């Protein structure tokens, strides 16, 4: 083998790659032009610990990146290092005092001892779960000739557990009176890897299906039908490859696919920032005071007109008190920016911006951190 020649060729390729990498990088974001939740009025008290460290859910990674960008703009030079290692790790690292706040797909669980461990970490003060990031889950499908599919919780559950096998099933027909549904097999596509999206989707099915979904929840899909594809990107491309395919996927991955409307008893609701905002506004808080734990089961089963209930809520887990003064200052500053300026471009990344009323609730809680 002629190593010299290979080496030279490799060198050129590597140099080219470096050049290209130099040209890339994030474009500087345009000034915050918020849509639903804009408020530059909220004062941000910059300073304190820099950089902040955080760890947890990968579902909110994209949102945290945006928040961190906005934080760096608002407070010059301020940084947040978010390690998207999974919700379990986020809680573990937060409770161990390794990171300043944790990110998690679910609120701290008292049964697992997480609540008491967190209280210990916060020097005897309770930890708060702040639902900062909401990601709607789209029911994406591909069916030639059908562009306005409407489903409800029960039908969705039956599709995803195999009770409904054909697109022209009477149950689907009943919801789509005008549509010309073909006599085709439904090809269910699910996430083959473990995922919080699957967990929330199955929780939704359990809550909203009038008992049609008996398979339970969990990070792996229990429906027992269909084809599993790898990650969000995988399910999105798989569903586009087959006529008659249907899947559940984060909103940002469903931009080029048809998304079903959900009818929870008060009319079909399209997935938009507004309909998700409405659902968030209607979510009941089951935590006490500023601990904003959401009652998702109630949200999933609700039939508020115009609200799209199938959403994934992820929490930032913070100490109510008990931080070093430096850390408390930075955490407050970051979360304030996240709840205000950080909301600007969330919709592009497939997250839903916070509605005004809920934003106020969060800001109250953030201001109360000491």
């Amino acid at each position, binding site marked *: 083998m002629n190593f010299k020649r290979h080496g030279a060729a490799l060198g050129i390729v590597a140099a080219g790659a470096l050049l290209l990498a130099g040209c890339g990088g994030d474009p500087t974001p345009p000034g915050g032009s918020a849509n639903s939740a804009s408020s530059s009025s909220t004062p941000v008290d910059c300073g304190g610990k820099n950089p902040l460290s955080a760890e947890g859910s990968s579902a909110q990674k994209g949102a945290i990146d945006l928040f961190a960008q906005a934080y760096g703009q608002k407070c010059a030079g301020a940084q947040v290092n978010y390690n998207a290692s999974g919700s379990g790790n986020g809680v573990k690292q937060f409770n161990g005092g390794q990171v300043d706040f944790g990110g998690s797909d679910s609120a701290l669980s008292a049964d697992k001892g997480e609540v008491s461990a967190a209280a210990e970490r916060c020097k005897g003060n309770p930890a708060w779960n702040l639902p900062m990031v909401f990601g709607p889950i789209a029911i994406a499908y591909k069916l030639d000739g059908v562009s306005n599919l409407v489903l409800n919780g029960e039908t969705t559950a039956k599709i995803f557990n195999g009770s409904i096998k054909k697109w022209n099933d009477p149950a689907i027909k009943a919801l789509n009176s005008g549509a010309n549904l073909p006599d085709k097999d439904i*090809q269910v596509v699910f996430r083959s890897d473990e995922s919080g999206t699957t967990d929330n989707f199955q929780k939704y099915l359990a809550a909203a299906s009038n008992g049609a979904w008996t398979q339970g929840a969990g990070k792996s899909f229990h429906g027992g039908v269909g084809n599993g594809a790898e990650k969000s990107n995988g399910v999105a491309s798989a569903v586009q490859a087959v006529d008659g395919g249907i899947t559940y996927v984060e909103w940002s991955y469903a931009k080029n696919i048809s998304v079903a409307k959900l009818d929870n008893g008060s009319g079909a609701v399209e997935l938009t920032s507004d309909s998700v905002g409405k659902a968030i506004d209607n979510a009941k808080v089951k935590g006490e005071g500023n601990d904003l734990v959401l009652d998702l089961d109630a949200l999933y089963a609700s039939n508020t007109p115009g609200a799209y209930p199938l959403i994934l809520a992820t929490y930032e887990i913070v100490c109510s008190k008990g931080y070093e003064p430096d850390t408390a200052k930075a955490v407050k500053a970051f979360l304030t920016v996240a709840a205000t300026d950080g909301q600007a471009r969330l919709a592009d990344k497939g997250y839903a911006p916070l509605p005004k009323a809920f934003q106020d609730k969060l800001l109250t809680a953030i201001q109360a951190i000491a």
Partner: protein
Amino acid sequence: MSESSATPTPAGASVDSGNTGVGGRVPSADTTPEGPISAQPVTGNKTKVRPGDRIFRGLTTGSGVLVVVLIGLIGLFLLVQAIPSIGLDQVNFLTSREWSTNDPANLRFGILDLLLVTVATSVVALVIAMPVSLGIALFLTQYAPPKLARPFAYAVDLLAAVPSIIFGLWGLYVLAPQLAPIASWLNDTLGFIPIFADGNVSSEIGGTIFTAGVVLGIMLLPIITSLTREVFQRTPVAQIEGALALGATRWEVIRTTVLPFGKAGYISASMLGLGRALGETIALTIILLAPSTTFGGSIFDGGATFASKIASASSEFNDPRSVGAYITAGLVLFLLTFLVNFAGRAIVSGKKEYR
């Protein structure tokens, strides 16, 4: 890999002379012309070992030992991590087809399905790669004019430099739709044979063992081809010329000299390729669809191999007991690859020509 088998040869040929640098290239039969040249080093060699020799020997020994120690430690790591989880397993670890590790208190995992899918994809890959590689190697060594053979060989070797994730994406987005008609034709016409029966995943999406096997086969081409080519090139010229002198055609020359001479090397190269196929991870993770039922023996089934299963779950590893279940799968893969390589080695070492 040729380290162990190569060492005896120079040592045996040059026990007295000690000048391995020249001995390597000279055929061992005619040592007489070397006599006067090698006489000089002999005198110095008997009395003292030069420091350069000692250092070099130390370095090579060190490298050799390092590999063995490394393999041993990897095996040990897998074993230590796997044993606690096997103890917690609620189903039979070898014969169960279940895989559910979400609840660490109720681990249910068996490797049978993973094993079958792993073997099935690798076999499909080999069935495609072996004949094609043989053809390429024969073309490059026997048919192609030297001017063409060299760039051609480079091109084949370059295939090995393509990252497997590229193969995976290409396989899923470009190749799978092209293969769909072939797959459905095979399924329609030969569907009565179990391996071509209807699969348990959607044939339109194309993430089947068949697609994965084709992509894997392409990935194996450079590995099998380059080794086979080297072996075929070593066919003794005297044998080839002898066959030609007896009036053999090009094909008869290949059949009577090249193939018998290179067969063991070819099979060994395929075994090496098989080892690679068994462990291939990311391309298969991307391509293979996970079915909701177990593997039914058809190449149009979906599934997960050992490596792809571990890769797809790795982002959510957060309990040591669940991780242990995956490590157990890794251990089985490790042993399987070990066995395959061992078999390949056994085939080669049975042949005198390669000793």
